[in-house]
């Protein structure tokens, strides 16, 4: 059972739809008691950093998420949900949850040249190491995912599981123990998205 955190920000419907399609049971909830019982958690999110962080902090969820992740429960942040797992973002002034030693910066306009911001569209993810999450069986690799973002994560190499190039290379999957942060939208990424969510659903960190 995957518990999808509902804090009023994000496309929960599409994550649940995809999990349903791949036969993974899920629960969308805002109820702290249910999150306390969660075995596997997805933190979604779209939008602006401060506005999402404010909404999350209006609930009891930050401390519960901290407790669950410390207990070793697999936790996946998607898009802005991934960025919230870091210490913070140039987009806002509020601190993030800080579960991963990372922060978020705006795309470097000089380095990307004529490319546009936000990055909107499909791009490849190059894995830096292999594990359950990166197993794409006999599918053509590198896998392609859908991105829509103006800010990206930066972290120490030891936490970087996937890199993407958009003008320059930057981390798009971070992993620290049982915590995963994915910049792209697996729930919008056809068969590659289905596979990576399937992998997350059976991942034993």
């Amino acid at each position, binding site marked *: 059972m995957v518990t999808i955190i509902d804090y009023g920000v*994000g*496309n*929960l*419907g*599409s994550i649940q*739809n*995809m999990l349903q*399609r791949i036969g993974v049971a899920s629960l969308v909830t805002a109820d702290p008691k249910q999150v306390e019982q969660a075995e596997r958690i997805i933190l979604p999110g*779209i*939008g*602006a950093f401060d*506005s999402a962080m404010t909404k999350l902090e209006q609930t009891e969820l930050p401390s519960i998420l901290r407790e669950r992740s410390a207990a070793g429960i697999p936790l996946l942040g998607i898009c*802005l949900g991934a960025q919230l797992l870091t210490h913070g973002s140039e987009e806002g002034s509020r601190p993030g949850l800080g579960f991963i030693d990372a922060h978020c910066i705006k795309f470097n*306009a000089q380095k990307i040249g004529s490319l*546009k*911001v*936000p990055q*909107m*569209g*499909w*791009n490849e993810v190059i894995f830096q190491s292999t594990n359950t999450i990166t197993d794409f069986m006999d599918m053509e690799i590198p896998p*392609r995912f*859908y991105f*829509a*973002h*103006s800010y990206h994560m930066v972290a120490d190499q030891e936490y970087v599981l996937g890199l993407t190039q958009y003008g320059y290379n930057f981390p798009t999957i971070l992993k620290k123990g049982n915590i995963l942060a994915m910049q792209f*939208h697996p*729930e*919008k*990424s*056809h*068969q590659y*998205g*289905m596979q990576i969510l399937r992998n997350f659903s059976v991942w034993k960190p």
Partner: protein
Amino acid sequence: MRRVRVIPVLLLHNRQLVKTTQFKNPKYIGDGINALKIFNEKGADEVVVLDIDAFNRKEPDFEFIGKLVSECFMPLAYGGGIHTMDQAQRLFALGIEKVVIGACAISQPSLITNLANQYGSQSVVVSIDIKKDWLKRNRAFTENGKKNTGLDPLTYAKQLKELGAGELIVQSIDREGTGKGYDVTILQEISSAISIPVVALGGANSTNDFLKAIVEGGASAVAAGSMFVFKGPHKAVLISYPSPKELKEKLYSHL
């Protein structure tokens, strides 16, 4: 090799899929849910759904949109009848990735800014529908091409970027449904002046048109209607989408 998005645009009229020519004469194509399912199976990069009745309606047809989204494992943008933050919130909750704003961007520009602040600019797309006025000047039109706003598309595009729009769909009404190719001049004019992605729409007939819109027009993505729903000179209804191999050979490898 650069990947650019190739986006089918589906028009809804009374919950059914239609295709217009120069924003007129809607021709019945088929069932919207089924069409979306097919594009999903073909691995489309993204789909834009526009409800062409909705501008004179108070709100989007949420029930039907919910059904569309459940067939979609790709980004889906929706436009038509979005006037309020609450309506946008409901669309995002259903699983819509981006909202497409038309006339409201003019009547209520603060909606664009509020949406960008709340949901991020990547969630806010504005469509600029362009037609020549009687002096042959390009002007932005709203209400399905009936109302001339008097706005110069380039000036308008710059304002939209400042308001917080994350992407612009630049559509030529004169070319829509004609297969005459995109209006590359206006695409170039707008894309070179603003830093946000421009999506080309109106007139595409081949992957060569895509290439022109990107290379000459500076578009970040290409969209089309007829090309993906009709086949042959008699416009037989056939839903199609280029294969990954075709896109690589005819498009990405030339960028």
